[in-house]
């Protein structure tokens, strides 16, 4: 389990290492064809800032070689905002007084139909809060069953599950799981996740092993930038990625860098802010570190930044996302989990990508591959 590995890596020492990386370390990393985590630290360090143009060129080159001039498109659907957790930064926080919704099977199907009218989406991401009683594994399995006639590839972003629960969902057509560790800083994790199941750091951390053991084909990782020193957090994620790649070598991995904006959701203020320039540097560094990992940008990012980064390392994008349950059809005006910065319609995102010489790919999986 990765918790055994993480215990061997000191947060403080890693932070110290990153900030003492030198110009020579950066140049060494840039001259390699395969980078290790030490090189990654150099590339995200302040010492690499003068090399951002070189990094962008390398990132573009590797992305083109591996992914071509394409962008894989997906759409999220929030099934419920009901949640028993109390993450201090989240709009669906258990003690927020708000109307809670759990979509019924009929409502779910209406959402699927409404999504298909927006664009030829085939990659669907189903999102829930953590409410194992009212919206647990059976509920998610039902939503997957209902999705099959409409979508080719089904992913979920839900609470961490047991191995047998992931395996059960795979039997219902699940292709991938996205889970954000939020932060790898175990000491402070509880400050942000004080109560509920999510307060158990290790259960969440080892969830990725359980996904691998259950044979989930695709695993998405992420840290929420805004909680702890982002450079240290993404370095821990890089270690985690390498560990998973070696242990569960048949699984495809993706990384996300969701960042909090000041005053997002009114209450919680981010502890750290990452600038556009730094997020670009991080994206390039990740691509130079790993030529094959999917890098995903959501509609949290604004249109101009997303479009520019689309050529330089990003390989997966959502479009026209609603971050409230039933937002496409049933409850078009309900409360969002986070505010979307790219409010363009999917067809507008498609047109913008095409104009830049990037082909949006809606379908890149076939259900016949899941036949057992």
């Amino acid at each position, binding site marked *: 389990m990765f918790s055994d590995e993480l215990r061997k890596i000191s947060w403080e020492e890693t932070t110290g290492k990153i900030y003492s990386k030198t110009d020579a370390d950066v140049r060494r990393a840039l001259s390699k064809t395969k980078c290790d985590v030490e090189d990654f630290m150099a590339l995200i360090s302040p010492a690499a800032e003068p090399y951002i143009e070189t990094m962008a060129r390398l990132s573009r080159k590797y992305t*083109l*070689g*591996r*992914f*071509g*001039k*394409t962008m894989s498109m997906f759409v999220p659907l929030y099934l419920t905002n009901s949640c028993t957790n109390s993450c201090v930064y989240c709009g669906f926080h258990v003690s927020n007084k708000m109307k809670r919704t759990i979509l019924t099977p009929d409502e779910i199907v209406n959402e699927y139909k409404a999504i298909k009218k927006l664009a*030829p989406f*085939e990659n669907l991401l189903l999102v829930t809060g953590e409410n194992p009683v009212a919206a647990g594994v059976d509920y998610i399995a039902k939503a997957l069953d209902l999705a099959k006639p409409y979508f*080719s590839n089904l992913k979920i972003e839900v609470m961490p599950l047991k191995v047998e629960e992931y395996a059960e969902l795979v039997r219902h057509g699940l292709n991938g799981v996205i889970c954000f560790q939020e932060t790898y800083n175990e000491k402070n994790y509880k400050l942000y996740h004080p109560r509920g199941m999510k307060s158990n750091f290790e259960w969440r951390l080892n969830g990725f092993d359980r996904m691998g053991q259950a044979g989930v084909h695709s695993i998405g990782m992420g840290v929420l930038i805004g909680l702890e020193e982002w450079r240290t957090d993404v370095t821990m994620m890089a270690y985690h990625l390498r560990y998973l*790649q070696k242990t569960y*070598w*048949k*699984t*495809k991995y993706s990384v996300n860098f969701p960042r909090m904006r000041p005053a997002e959701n009114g209450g919680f203020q981010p502890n750290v802010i990452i600038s556009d320039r730094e997020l670009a540097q991080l994206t390039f560094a990740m691509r130079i570190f790993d030529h*094959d990992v999917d890098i995903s940008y959501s509609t949290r990012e604004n249109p101009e930044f997303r479009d520019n980064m689309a050529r330089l390392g990003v390989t997966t994008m959502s479009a026209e996302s609603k971050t409230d349950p039933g937002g496409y059809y049933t409850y078009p005006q309900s409360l969002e989990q986070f505010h979307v910065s790219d409010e363009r319609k999917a067809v507008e995102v498609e047109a913008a990508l*095409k104009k830049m*010489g*990037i*082909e949006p*790919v809606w*379908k*890149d*999986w*076939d259900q*016949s*591959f899941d*036949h*057992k």
Partner: protein
Amino acid sequence: MEKLVIAGREFNSRLFLGTGKFDSNEIMEQAILASGTEMVTVAMKRIDLDNREDDMLKHIKHPHIQLLPNTSGVRDAKEAVFAAQMAREAFGTNWLKLEIHPDPRYLLPDSIETLKATEELAKMGFIVLPYCQADPVLCKRLEEAGAATVMPLGAPIGTNRGLQTKEFIRIIIEQANIPVIVDAGIGAPSHAAEAMEMGASACLVNTAIAIADNPVEMAKAFKSGIEAGRMAYEAGLGVQAANFEAEASSPLTKFLV
């Protein structure tokens, strides 16, 4: 130029094209036409199998082109056999590029599963073109299992690194009774020419054309590279200089009067 024959069908071009990674279906179609290819492979995962008007497919279908569905995405023989049957139904062809790569990073073929699936699919009447390791013994085993060709890799997919497996491809060509098509890793027309000079039957190219600044011109360049290499092979390459480097100052055969 001698015509290439696979499973009884003649091909005027020895360049096969892949269809991923292009910036639009229109450019892909132009590149296909400019390349002169008569064999084009398409990932079934990219095609809406229920939709006869699928946009990508529309741009690939031409009367002179043999459509070669591929199973990219499957991870074992069982999945491949099922996917192949779906492909046969949807595309109306027995031709199949068998790709089984359980490793999603380097997309390297699983030799064991590929051999198993080839055996099974050949028995079911498929014309199987398996993507495989540049492993001479495996290639003989695939031939015995009923493969129509073997498609050993030059380098990992998408790397454009050329014939990194040259020594093994040489042996595969020497031993094969079926066409040898070098697939994956070919990054420049000179790489393709080199493979053809060695006696490869054809090359399959995708990334190098799709990600070029001008894919249509690059397709033409590959057409020329393939033709030049094949013509040189058929014409009989001259004596290679490497074996005739400077005579040693103290000859080894001085004792032979």
